[in-house]
């Protein structure tokens, strides 16, 4: 019997400090047993349990993309027991990864559609995974227009800055980067919270447009009416939820929102689906 609680052993291969407050780091992991990488085959939008012996596990969205091979990446905010410990670990250290877990953005159904991607703060990780996936030469033709609104408090708090700049230069993706505020005179992108930028820059919805939204609760709260105004149906608004988790496989019971389990039935839900739950997240 395969043990779904047993993590794959991995080695930390690279650690990048992402943000100016140093609270976000991106960890690149390499599987100790190369065959585990195949077993870990994942889709953009899934998450995994980062497993640190002696400390515990923490569910984190997968930031690398299925089209990137040889490693997996996670961007981790320093917050609780496990993530604080992880932030103090070094390249070469051994730990575990358990997954991939949960569902993913509905890629098959999204083929042929225009996509509006909205991210805020450090909830941009699985969106990075998604963008890299869609921009892959093998996949780009499968999707229509791609618009991305991504906001952070300051320029220094944006994740994946080099990639953002690269995407800005491309003509097959419309980037709308924004910050809440900045005193940088050279800042050439947007200034303002995510919801108003969505209102100004995002395309009107039609039957073939979908929005994927990830961000802090306050951003989601104020973005929803904007999307409604732009004509996005609740079936076309796709969100990724977070709740406290332990098992990640739908057994331990704590992440339930009504009859749905965020870890197994989610984390990806349409707003229409979420509306049918008691929204206990």
């Amino acid at each position, binding site marked *: *019997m*395969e*043990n*779904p*609680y*047993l*993590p794959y*052993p991995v080695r930390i291969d690279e650690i990048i400090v992402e943000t100016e407050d140093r609270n976000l780091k991106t960890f690149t992991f390499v599987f*100790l047993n190369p065959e585990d990488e195949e077993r870990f085959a994942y889709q953009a939008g899934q998450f995994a349990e980062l*497993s640190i*012996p*002696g*400390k*515990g*596990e923490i569910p984190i969205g997968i930031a690398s993309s299925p089209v990137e091979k040889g490693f997996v990446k996670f961007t981790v905010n320093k*917050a*609780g027991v496990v*993530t604080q410990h992880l932030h103090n670990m070094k390249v070469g*250290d*051994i*730990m*575990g990864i358990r997954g991939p877990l949960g569902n993913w953005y509905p890629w098959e159904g999204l083929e042929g559609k225009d996509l509006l991607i909205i991210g805020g703060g450090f909830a941009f990780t699985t969106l990075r995974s998604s963008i890299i996936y869609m921009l892959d030469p093998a996949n780009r033709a499968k999707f229509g227009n791609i618009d991305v609104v991504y906001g952070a408090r300051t320029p220094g708090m944006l994740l994946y800055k080099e990639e953002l700049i690269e995407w800005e230069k491309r003509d097959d993706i419309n980037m709308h980067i924004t910050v809440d505020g900045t005193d940088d005179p050279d800042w050439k992108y947007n200034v303002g919270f995510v919801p108003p930028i969505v209102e100004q820059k995002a395309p009107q919805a039609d039957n073939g447009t979908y929005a994927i939204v990830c961000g802090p*609760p306050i951003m989601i709260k104020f973005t929803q009416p904007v999307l409604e105004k732009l004509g996005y149906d609740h079936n076309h608004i796709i969100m990724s939820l*977070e*709740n*406290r988790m*332990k*098992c990640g*496989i*739908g*057994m*331990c*019971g*704590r*992440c*339930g*929102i*009504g*009859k749905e389990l965020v870890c*197994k039935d989610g984390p990806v839900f349409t707003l229409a689906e979420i509306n*049918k739950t*008691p929204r*206990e*997240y």
Partner: protein
Amino acid sequence: MIKKIAKDEWASGLSKLAKTYRLFGPVAERGPDGARTFHNFKALAPGELPDLDLGNTRLSAKSLVFPQSEAMFTYTLDEDRDDHHILKEVPADGMSRVAFGIRPCDAKALAMVRMNFDTPEYKDPYWLRLYEATTFVGLACDAPCPTCFCTSTECGPYHEEGLDLLLCAEGEGLLAKAITEKGERLLADAGWEEAADQDLGARKAAAEGCITSRIGTDQLAEGDLLDLHGADFWEDVAFACINCGTCTYLCPTCWCFDIQDEVFKQEGQRLRQWDSCMFPIFTVHTTGHNPRDTKTQRVRQRFMHKLKYFVDKYEKGIMCVGCGRCVRHCPVNIDIRKVADLMNRYTSDAAKAEQA
């Protein structure tokens, strides 16, 4: 086919079984003064007989397959060792086990809880290994407790679901009905082969007749989940609750758990232990945000999970077998029977209001 087990054959059969099985059964706990207090399932010591003279065990039989605290993995943090920081499965105890004296309600509960631990996508190896290694020998209830309401939960004092063998008292001895092949094998292994020209039908009917406590659940599947979630009675239901874990820890169908790492010097264990939706930390986020921050939300979660979410998710009825433990031992007398009736009535009232 019903077999008869005379009093002396019971003891000799058990000692035969002890050679190939680990035996578990209800054992009376004793207080500091030596007085018998209540029963719990324990591993039977050599020669020890399960004490079948009981109402029901204080804690349910779930700990037989789902111990309150269970090691899942071990590891070392000692970097001089090649396998440092790599988790190793705690080897399974492969020995077959027999659980004697499990009440039909507890056996049904385990069969239901299997739906949580044995899914198409994932199998919980710890739970399943113990469940499959165990032969469940039930003990029919000829004298149910006033708090038993198992006949309202698609269960009953002679219910066979989840059992391999059903025992009932017959004079000084016992009658045994094999339900599965596992049960037949156990009868053969124990040498309990004397046929009894008996039928349990009348006893079953008599026992069911003793159960006077009933709940209504017929409307629960029909009701709107969010309506019920927003019903006006939750504050009143929850007022007395002290948010302890008694109801959930005594419940045979509660399966929620926590996973924790513990390290002594350089050697660590990853443990699984019971957890409870009654505790605020069950759901609190690292940010401090808690989706079920109030007592009322947590009490509602417990009842909604058992009586609505589970009903909707699996379409197999309610997640309650009517054992009555939570009713008997709640320190403040919160009674699931009353809550089930409130929920059921709320749903039928809502339906009537819509028709009107």
